């Protein structure tokens, strides 16, 4: 569920930002999307990509942990 929400938030936020740009600057949708992701230098894009991937990995790890906890019965905490 966490991964799903991560992807959903990502997509929705992205569409909001692209939508705003479309409204303001009268480009088309796709043009704005391309513009947004390509205007940066390579090293900086790497940092962004890394951040996104880290977030994704963490979301997957959290989901796996939750599934495992649900599988085993809860141990009573001391």
């Amino acid at each position, binding site marked *: 569920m966490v991964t799903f929400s991560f992807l959903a938030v990502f997509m929705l936020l992205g569409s909001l*930002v692209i939508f705003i740009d479309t*409204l303001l600057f009268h480009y088309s949708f796709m043009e704005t999307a391309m513009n947004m992701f390509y205007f940066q*230098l390579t090293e900086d894009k790497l940092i962004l990509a890394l951040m996104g991937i880290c977030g994704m990995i963490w979301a997957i790890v959290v989901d796996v942990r939750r599934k495992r906890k649900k599988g085993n019965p809860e141990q009573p905490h001391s």
Partner: protein
Amino acid sequence: MEKENLSLTQLLALEFIFLLGSAIIMGVGTELRQNSWIAIAIATVLGTGIMYLFYTLNELLPNHNLFEIMEYGFTRPVAIFISVFYIIYFLYISSRLNRDFVELIATAILPLTPIEVISLTVMLVIIYIVYLGVEVLARVSEIFFPYLLGFIFLLIVFLFASGRIKLQNAQPMLGDGFMPVIKGIFPGLITFPFGELIVFTVILSSVTHLKKAKKVVLLGVVMAGFSLTFATVIMLMSLGADTMEFSIFPLLSAARKISIANFIERTDALVVFIMLLGILVKSSLFFYAGLKGLEYIFRIPYRDFTFPIGMTVACFTVWVSANFAEHEEEGLVFVTRYLHPPMQFGIPFLLLGIILWKTKKRQKANKKSTAV
């Protein structure tokens, strides 16, 4: 999902830093030139009314945050649908605030560092604080609250001591009549910074004594508004209307003019600290509100969401706009006119109406059952 407790002092500190944080650096109402402080003063009065509205929402249903109130007012599916909008709204505003801060740092303090790095570092701090809980955020703001006040006060004292304050910069007052002031308030000043108090509907449910909180909450708005007015007056008198209107960070420009005995100069660090604090608190609160929304929809504790959604916000801090001009324009044109009013006023008014109606219905039903 355990209960977290905020004390009243912490609430006051949170509110003050929240309202003051980014407004004092970015400068509100600067396009109104000499009338800016009048506009802010009037907006403060209106702001107390707005805060009272949000407080009433929480008072009617104690221990419910915004999303649970929506569930009570509408049904759960409708509430989930609206919550999606609120989550995206909160996270978007959080990204924009981060972008403000990143712009300040990249312009004035660390010009050679790529903005992704600054965005990543500040977001890591916000993630850490929100992961620890809203209690920790409240305690941090409580600790730093006197320092914030002190630094602002210090800046003002230094400005006076440098002899930069010129009273004629504040004139002419209301030169074009009252209409520009009204135009500036609706929708500009009402939504930023006072309308953003909607975030407090999410955390007011965690306050220990909700009844006593009414005075504290309104006092916070008044204090912050007064400080903002005062600071704007000082900035106006030291910079002059033209510089203030066209400068990106008026407080920074004012601080750069301080020069006392050739020793105390270049007090940029103080301004950066003020802004860091304000943005941290504000952005953390919006981020926390967004996470609470996700918790409400998925019924998973919000701590699990912190890091992935945080990384998303960090990415979008960069993507929100390509340069500062676009950022400003988006803020002034789109966000203020089309994004803030429905989210901050439209839906809450509707919600309040429905809840009042439902409470009256329930009261009538109770009277009927007891009468029989």
